[in-house]
């Protein structure tokens, strides 16, 4: 009986380990930062922001939240932000030469939807250079821009 109780608790504990990890389901409580400046709220946010995507999302919204007038499109920090929060998906799309994440990234770089294919082809052909072994988001963004710079025609259709 006791053992069974212990086991039952074990289940609850095991099952809730996703939370124990402090993962963002609990909410990267960005809201408080994103909406208003309340010192107490900020602390709650900071405390719950060590999960999967916490820090990244934090940066994204704090950019808008503190109202630094940072337009999402074409801002370097947004591009880096996107690469960092989405790298596992983006790299896959880059290697495949197409995909939703790649299209979104093209949009962040100011390349119109009509240039998606050309952009995808370029990313695929230069994949190994752009995503090297060291793939810091800023390095990836710089690599992408370098690759674009080598293709003046495509680059001219993106608002870099």
């Amino acid at each position, binding site marked *: *009986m006791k053992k*069974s109780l212990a086991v*039952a608790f074990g289940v609850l504990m095991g*099952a809730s380990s996703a939370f124990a990890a402090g993962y963002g389901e609990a*909410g990267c409580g960005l809201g408080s930062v994103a909406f*208003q400046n309340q010192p107490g709220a900020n602390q*709650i946010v900071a405390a719950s922001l060590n999960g999967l995507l916490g820090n990244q999302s934090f940066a994204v919204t704090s950019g808008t939240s503190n109202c630094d007038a940072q337009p999402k499109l074409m801002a370097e920090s947004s591009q880096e932000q996107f690469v960092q929060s989405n*790298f596992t998906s983006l790299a896959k799309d880059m290697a495949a030469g197409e995909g*939703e994440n790649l299209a979104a990234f093209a949009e962040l770089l100011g390349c119109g939807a009509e240039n998606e294919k050309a952009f995808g082809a370029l990313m695929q052909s230069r994949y190994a250079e752009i995503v090297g072994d060291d793939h810091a988001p800023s390095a990836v963004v710089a690599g992408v821009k370098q690759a674009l710079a080598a293709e003046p025609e495509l680059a001219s259709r993106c608002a870099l």
Partner: protein
Amino acid sequence: MKGSTHTVWGQVVVALGLVLSGASAGFAQSGDAQDYRRELRARAREARLFDDREWRLLVHYKPTLFGAYESQEDAPAFFNAPNGKTNPEAELAATIERFFIDPAELKAGEEHPQCDFPARYQWLKSRLSFDSTRLRERPCERLDRWMSEINPKGVTLVFASYFMSSPASMFGHTLLRLDQDLGRADGRLLDYSVNFAAAPDTNNPVLYVFRGLFGYFKGQFSVAPYYTRVQDYSNWESRDLWEYPLNLSPDQIDTLLRHLWELGGNYFDYLYFQENCSYHILSVLEVANPELRLTDRFAFHVIPAETVKAVTDQPGLAGNARYRPSLVSQLNGKRVRLSPDETEGLRALVFNREPRIGPEYQALTDQAKARVLDAYLDYRHYLDMQASKRPDWISSETQIMLTERSKLPVVERPGTAVEFSSRPEMGHDSARVRIAAGVDTSGVFQEIAFRPAYHDLMAKDDGYSPDSQILFGDVGARYYDRSGRLRLQHFRLIDVVSLAPYEPLFHRKSFRFGIGVDTIRDLPCRFCNAIRLDYGAGVTARSGIRGAIRFYSLVDVIGESSRYFDRHYRLGADLLGGVLADIGSAWRVHLAGGYAMFPLGHRSAYSHFTVSQRYAIFRNLDVRAELGRVGTRREATVGVSVYF
């Protein structure tokens, strides 16, 4: 001379200007402002605006048991009146009052009340036709920037399907997406999304459950790019998403956004069963369109799937749902489309050690290689995220295969995704009544059972997590003709089963646990009840990715307590196994058998075997027949289940 006159007059003009511009603080205009304040308050009182549905929605007032009103919001900053939480009228008066505040009176960093409560301001402005010469409209720079950055043209309700391995996610989850551009069907990743979630302040699971159930967490709204949610839910937790575009007018969307701003820095006490993520998503939709009645139907518990039904039930509100397959569903969708050779190639990539790229893969055409690698890279993506719990980490092995993929052609992707889950509103409703009749060794009986929630293994899986069971408070009573008494057959406080298939790529475990009261059936004790706790783990195999037959096997550790037992308890284990088979979508057959031994306490052992069948006639009605044997006791029942 001229020049100096000009200067003097200039100074006078400047001085006058200063006096006038500061006048709202000074006495020059305060008399009128005072009048206008009083007038607005009187008009609001006359029109009984505090009693208006929109006011109640804006401040989240709900009727209490005693006929008064109380706001569900728990942050003091959300109210203008000290007793605003419980007094809609005082709150309304104080809100009008504070809209008149002179910005000079605000502390550094403090926003003007008109900017803190922009939805209330808009509503009162239109209801009371504010005269902007008498009540000055204040600029709200931060609000304006925030709104223009989010800039929604549409709103989408997103349902994240079930995640059995976490108690907070077992029932699914809902969030809103604020769509910026209606032109594109896909590519919504850059839109913002709105989530309501608890901010847990503990890592202790016992405290977590306790605090979650009793409202000790603060629940807050948050706004973040949708791609972060897709990484969270679709990729990391492998939950399919269902996206329902909502039919809201531009004005309603504007109100929604303003209201979200009001809620932003504040909080609701988070109640796992009542005021949870899904409840407050509904409550803000009601603010956007007060004609919607979404929260009224939830009294005791709010289940995310049921909130989706509340939305899809409203005529004209929700459009066709779009399926966004999880990472695992994407992979499985690719797998079912591979040719046998390609499947062999994928198998070789997954299981070959050195060299990973072996002859089975090398023999394929470039197009085929690309298809195989696309599936394999989904699998690597899954493995990497599970290993690192990060959205930006790629293992070196994955990187090698990504580089390999980049040398192969772009392949055409099929337009429609293979669906591995079904829309939540397709599911039966979550409460159930069952009426059954049967016969066992004690004679003929009638049975009635009720549960408030949620889904059992034999019920139709549509809209639910396949091959799972979550029961709360399931109670059943039997009336035996011979004894002429109604008695408790079972009470399941909680009973959870998950039979996730174990397969070569995903080594998922199956488990079950339960707490409740059951009838002792293996011993010659007629109508004795025992308190029962059990926890079991094992594996399930499935006949193919979408196979209709599942085999499972579990070891279930059982503790039971009853006065009837020697030393009042017994502890042991049940080795059980079974087969679940679906014949079409309406008919399910379940064979289960096992052998239970109790070496501790009341020493005993028995074997058991059941055959059950279910036929679903309507979404909310099914019939079942069961034939079983426990020890030497046999039993047959036929029953009807009605969901509501």
